[in-house]
């Protein structure tokens, strides 16, 4: 199926590897055709609504109108873009006065009926289907904590449960990884306030990593560029703050899909991760056959899901 694809600002800079790996995955999947939304603009993230209540709707409306012209649903990989445009899509369709008011601020585009906005995890799990992902190299030995963060499942009423989502876990299992159950799946990393309130966001992010580690994960899967930035780029700093070692590679779910699908690794951007995944991959999915066979699958008893270090 064809979708209008909204990369979003972060996917051109800090999370370029998210964009690259997702497009590589889509390129391989027949059921997923991502057509870049022409001339898209920033969704306004959290600041837009803070500065002006109408602004997030107006910024989203221009993108929604372009997708509507294409006659396609809109896929947004960034959780903040997804939430903003999804919310605007509903508001614009439910409130005729708002739609008229917003349309009057646009010169070249108009929203008639705003298209549905989707997160790629939703599309992969519910449209493509996890069983239709061709797995060439199962992710055996990877114990993945799927981290949904805030905006993939909230505000509630989306495609997965806001307290205990399962979609990314199901995807990880289909790829051959072990899906780690843990209590911080939807806890916030502090991404929206990390510039203005650094200390708070570092506390939140360190908690997320500590819980992933305590639950026995050796990697974390994410679907949001801000979660990835805080947990990966700042992980060395968080380790210093907590005086501990996390050593958890934070990979976009699309990078993990690319690994399992056996895609060209140059298309996955794994070298861009600050916490390198290569040692882990060498010990798990890239390990020579015989050593993996001898290695006991789980030496430690299964950790309690709610455990904290």
């Amino acid at each position, binding site marked *: 199926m064809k979708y209008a694809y909204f990369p979003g600002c972060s996917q051109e*800079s800090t999370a370029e590897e998210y964009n690259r790996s997702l497009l590589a995955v889509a390129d391989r999947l027949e059921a997923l055709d991502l057509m870049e939304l022409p001339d898209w603009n920033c969704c306004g993230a959290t600041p837009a609504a803070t500065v*002006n209540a109408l602004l997030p709707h107006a910024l989203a409306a221009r993108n929604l109108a372009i997708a509507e012209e294409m006659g396609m649903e809109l896929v947004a990989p960034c959780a903040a873009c997804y939430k903003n445009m999804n919310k605007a899509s509903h508001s614009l369709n439910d409130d005729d006065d708002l739609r008229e008011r917003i349309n009057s601020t646009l010169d070249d585009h108009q929203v008639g009926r705003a298209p549905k906005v989707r997160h790629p995890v939703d599309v992969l799990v519910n449209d493509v289907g996890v069983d239709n992902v061709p797995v060439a190299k199962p992710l055996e030995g990877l114990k993945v904590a799927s981290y949904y963060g805030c*905006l993939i499942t909230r505000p509630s009423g989306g495609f997965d449960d806001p307290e205990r989502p399962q979609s990314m876990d199901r995807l990880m299992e289909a790829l051959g990884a072990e899906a780690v159950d843990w209590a911080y799946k939807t806890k916030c990393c502090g991404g929206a306030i990390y510039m203005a309130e650094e200390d708070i966001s570092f506390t939140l992010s360190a908690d997320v990593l500590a819980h992933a580690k305590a639950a026995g994960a050796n990697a974390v899967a994410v679907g949001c560029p801000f979660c990835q930035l805080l947990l990966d780029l700042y992980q060395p700093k968080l380790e210093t703050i907590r005086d501990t070692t996390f050593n958890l590679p934070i990979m976009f779910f699309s990078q993990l899909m690319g690994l399992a699908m056996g895609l060209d690794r140059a298309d996955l951007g794994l070298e861009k*991760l600050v916490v390198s995944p290569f040692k882990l991959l060498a010990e798990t999915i890239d390990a020579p056959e015989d050593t993996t066979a001898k290695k006991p699958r789980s030496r430690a008893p299964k950790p309690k899901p709610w455990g904290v270090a």
Partner: protein
Amino acid sequence: MTQTDAIRLGAETSAEMKEIEEMAATCYQCGTCTGACPVVAAGGMDYTPRAIMRMIQVGMEHETLSSQTIWTCASCYACAARCPRDIEITDMMTKLRNVALKKGYKARRGKVYNEGFMSIVRRHGRMYELELVVRYNLLTNPLNFLGLLPVGLKMIRKGKLRYLPDHPQGRPEIRHMFNRVEGDAE
């Protein structure tokens, strides 16, 4: 007479607060929002979300708008997802920031960050992270540049920094939109 009128004690609150008061009116103080809030757990709020709800109900406008809470809210929607009264608490916090900015309340560093962010989107149509970081730190804490160095160098090494802004062709339309939206809101 609305519910909020019935319980308000003090002076009349301002017109901008009316919509927010209506949103808070059905809160019965169960505290689920506070229990759900990760920022409360991290010690980052001076008033809990539950306290903020009650303060709005009883007309404590000044205390609410000058609180740290409305700026340290991480907009994670955990409170709203769990609220048994279906109050859009997170959106309320955003509206409170909005009113606080309009009324000239001291907005911690949030004012510089949020307004800086939107001025970039207005000019470029897309985010330009480098300008945001430079501008934000110049205006809040120039001495911090040294502290940014390790992370900055890491980002450069990993090719995570965009040096030049990217522009959609529809920039004029986007600027017009900003002007009209801002004119509309006055």
